[in-house]
């Protein structure tokens, strides 16, 4: 009988408290959004399921939890804390990305740069709210709207915040259709939204082959701390474009990125154990994450409007919203917003140019912030 009571006292039913229940509800919402609403399902489903796995109450000391040094989940989590998974995800992203539109219209890269301003405003906000500099930098990078970049920087600067930051970053990426359109409508007039973009020139193969090398040198010489992300990103892109490694590129953009995404999502989700995750800091991070994301969107749009003051050939300011690096969600949203005003206005390819420059910009920002924190 004692044995039975002892066993029962070690079950999840006995050990569960309200925090576990809250997190299980959060995980279920993620899975619902991913499966029923198709909001970023490739991210939300692994993370949501990871939240469920990580919040099943267990007896501490058995080597079961993600924060227990000898557990299987802890070993899988190693890829997150070392920044391994984000680098691998960047390899796959590079092998998927087509830079043709950016090469055809390089000026759109400035919108990707402008959208990174949200990161630095949020840095100030987080410092002002009392976060330590390394924590503030990790929170600020949510404004880049790039999940792997956020996880990478947080793993380096504030590993204890990986859970809330990753959840915030991915949540806002999934909520792009909810967050961005009101900001776009608020900051643009109908006349601006109707601006049509000229057709892009065809970019020769040789130009696309050389681009990854040029971009690698220019961006990584500027911020060497971004090598783990941008090095892999441009390597993946070179595999895609060089034409002789199609098999490797195919593997990078399918099996490799899928494996990394599964493990990244699951372990990040599992890291949100209720007793560790639910605290005032997490709420602050969610608040600041929304602020960062909105500000990044607004910065891009406002900068596009400023560019229109001096450019002869006007840019549709909606494109500024695609300067955040949420690929391809924000580009899709910009395109849809443009088409709501004029069904024959095709902004997708131009928005993808801003999107891909946003990926480069946010990775450079991560490198810069990491360098600043190492120096200070």
């Amino acid at each position, binding site marked *: 009988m004692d044995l039975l009571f002892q066993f029962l006292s070690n079950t999840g039913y006995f050990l569960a408290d309200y925090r576990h229940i809250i997190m299980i509800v959060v995980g279920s919402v993620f899975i619902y959004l991913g499966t029923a609403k198709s909001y970023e399902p490739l991210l939300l489903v692994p993370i949501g399921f990871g939240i469920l796995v990580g919040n099943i109450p267990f007896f501490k000391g058995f080597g079961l939890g993600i924060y227990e040094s000898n557990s299987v989940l802890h070993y899988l989590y190693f890829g997150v804390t070392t920044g391994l998974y984000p680098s691998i995800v960047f390899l796959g992203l590079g092998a998927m990305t087509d830079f043709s539109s*950016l090469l055809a219209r390089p000026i759109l890269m400035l919108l990707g740069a402008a959208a*990174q*301003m949200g990161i630095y405003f949020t840095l100030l906000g987080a410092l002002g709210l009392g976060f330590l*500099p390394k924590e*503030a930098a990790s929170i600020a990078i949510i404004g880049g709207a790039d999940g792997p970049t956020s996880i990478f920087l947080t793993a380096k600067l504030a590993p204890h915040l990986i859970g809330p930051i990753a959840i915030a970053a991915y949540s806002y990426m999934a909520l792009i259709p909810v967050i961005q359109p009101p900001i776009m409508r608020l900051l643009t007039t109908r006349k601006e939204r109707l601006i049509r973009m000229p057709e892009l020139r065809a970019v020769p193969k040789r130009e696309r082959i050389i*681009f990854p090398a*040029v971009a690698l040198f220019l961006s990584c010489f500027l911020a060497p701390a971004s090598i783990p992300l941008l090095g892999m990103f441009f390597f993946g892109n070179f595999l895609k474009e060089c034409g002789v490694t199609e098999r490797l590129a195919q593997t990078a953009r399918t099996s490799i990125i899928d494996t990394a995404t599964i493990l990244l999502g699951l372990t990040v989700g599992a890291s949100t154990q209720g007793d560790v995750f639910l605290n005032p800091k997490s709420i602050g991070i969610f608040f600041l994450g929304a602020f960062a994301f909105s500000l990044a969107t607004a910065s891009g749009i406002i900068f596009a409007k400023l560019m229109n003051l001096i450019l002869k050939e006007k840019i549709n300011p909606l494109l500024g919203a695609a300067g955040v690096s949420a690929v391809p969600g924000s580009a899709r949203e910009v395109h849809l917003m443009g088409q709501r005003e004029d069904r024959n206005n095709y902004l997708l390819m131009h928005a993808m140019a801003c999107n891909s420059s946003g990926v480069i910009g946010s990775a450079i920002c991560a490198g810069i912030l990491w360098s600043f924190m190492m120096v200070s």
Partner: protein
Amino acid sequence: MYGFEAITAHNGWSMAIAGASIVFSGLVILSLAISQLHKLLTIWENKKNFFNRNKQTSVNSTEEVLDLNLPERFPSDINEAARLYHPLVKKLGQPFQLVQLYEVSRKKGFPHPHLTISLLRQAKVLVPEGDGVFFWNHPSYQ
């Protein structure tokens, strides 16, 4: 510590301004570089034409000098023919393809280049080395 005091204490203003400036300037430089990429590639792809054009310009300039002394009729004197053709040979360098000499003299507008070159060959001023390659051999014009 909260608010502006915390931002100032942690060097927040400098980090934000410096960070924003660095990423912005970095992407501006990158966009400038890629905006010039297709131009550089065009030059690279057309480099043969580019160099040929230069070469042709040089030859033309030689020809322009020669124009001044060019006779209206085919030079019957071998020494006179050698004097006219010698600058072209110097420009082509030794040895040279006979067809090149013909092309250059024809473009320049030498009277009856085919006939003149035949004459120079018969006089052993143009010495064959095989495979259409020739040497210039004239005691006065070396």
